[in-house]
């Protein structure tokens, strides 16, 4: 695979490693946040179903 010569704005910027999100400095932390929110939704839906069953 031969990468094309890229315009400067497409070169990996120094900022790309930073998420820019307060409290979530690494991408791994952001991914855990996403999975955590999914787990919370599953718990919420199961709880809703049981509460009004």
């Amino acid at each position, binding site marked *: *695979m*031969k*990468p*094309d010569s*890229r315009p400067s*704005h*497409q070169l*990996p*910027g120094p*900022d*790309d490693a*930073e*998420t*820019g*999100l307060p409290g979530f400095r690494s*991408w791994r932390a*952001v*991914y855990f*946040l*996403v*999975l955590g*929110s*999914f787990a919370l*939704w*599953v718990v919420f*839906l*199961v709880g*809703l*179903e049981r*509460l*009004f*069953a």
Partner: protein
Amino acid sequence: MSQLDYLVLFGTMIGIAAYGVWRTRSAQSLSAYFKGDQTTGWAVIGISVMATQASAITFMSTPGQGYESGLGFVQNYFGMPLALIIVAAVFLPLYRRLNVYTAYEFLGRRFDSKTRLLGAALFLLQRGLAAGITIYAPAIVLSTVFGWRLDVTIVLSGVLVIVYTVTGGSQAVTLTQKYQLSLIFGGMVLAFIVLLLRLPAGLTLTDAFTVAGGFKKLEAVDFSIDVHQRYTFWSGLLGGLFLSLSYFGTDQSQVQRYLHGSSLRESRLGLMFNAVFKIPMQVFILLLGALVFVFYQFEQPPVFFNEVAWKAQASQPTGARLRTLEADFAAVHSEKRQLVHAWLDAQHHGNPQAAAVARAAAIAAQTHSDAIRAETKTVMQAADPRISTNDSDYVFVTFVLDHLPHGVIGLLVAAIFAAALSSKASELNALGATTTIDLYRHVIRSGASDAHYVTASKWFTALWGVVAVAFALFAHLVENLIQAVNILGSVFYGVMLGLFLVAFFLRRVGGTAVFWAAASGQILVFALYFTLNISYLWYNVIGCAACVLFSLILQAGIDSRGAADPVAASS
């Protein structure tokens, strides 16, 4: 629809489209036409990705699913957060590093030309057909609202989206999606609020949820491992993972959206925005459908929600039978309404025994009511076998037209139409890009100027628009619209994902092995689809696994032949 509704509908639709054309009217380079100006931030990317996936089908079929079957359909999206993480961490950095226009260009760089063409062909076939269904959905709304012929409505709505997509390219698509999604969310939230306000006086939100739960409309998560169940936690998690991975990682209509980002970070955050908010959005829309069901426990619903088809049949010789069924349905509904009131009254007065008795009677009345609806559909189909008896796509539209105030009706119809345009525009843009970059520039005419390719891509985009319109004219033969799109995706996406997973993770597999593996895998999926009765989500897993496994076997065979015949291997 009043004049105010028409004003809101046409004002918003034409206004957004015209704004998109005007803002992107200047001459564009190929890069700008397909990737925009690449200064887009994460919020706009997130909105664009969401708007591309959330078609009009989402806002018509999904409430219908909530009305008929409750929240269970949300499980379809359970694999999506993990899939988006994988796309953000693995697929996206590579696409950006190689500076590709399409995902299939990557296959050409990694393998060879024939594999690139196979990937592009699978995408064009699958997305070209699905594009017809997404154009059909808003046409149902408009034909119901205006009483127009469905085929005329399909053609007119198709022409509007073709015009602004062809003119402005990817930039116009992204720009208009911002406003279209705002309109969609505004419309849905407004519908939800009005729905709550229209519930009977004294009925609390808890009561509404109690009724929905009592009729099993809040059953969202099924942990059973029955592969014949269409939606379970496991099929959603695993099948949905593969479906979402294929859709977001390999479908050009999505890849093109996030390649707009000004940096890897912005594109990643745009994907994570969807990973967090897609499930809540689907829950909200399904819940809207479930609450429409609750609303119709207190208001008389039509026995058949497709009013146009009903009226056509009612004037035929079967009309007398249908009117009898309608009267029976009304009688059962009246009885059921009293039972639901009795059930809630008993609950309010702390009498669980009486509540349980009334609830059981209400559920029995609902079963009777469902039976009358089923018989009505049988009578209608016997009188006219061409008629589609699946009316769940008409549930939300019927509610909007019959029970929302003027102005809000126009806004809701505009929201549904905006959703159709936003996803349709992405699809046409991606179909045009793939045809231009992976077929025309790669195979037919390489080395021409940017201006030539921009002109060619406009023609190809328009051509795909015409194909989509033509296919939409036959889409009424398909069962439930949103399921049809997902089934179509599942049949093709598994193999497509297999191609990309081999490309990313199996470095020793070459182009010839993966090409024949993908072709064999696709034939296998077709054969199983027509012989097995399993949830369609599993075809994503089967197609992907078959492609990966066959690639390894074929590559091993090629390697062993090469080892046995070093001259052939070196030639």
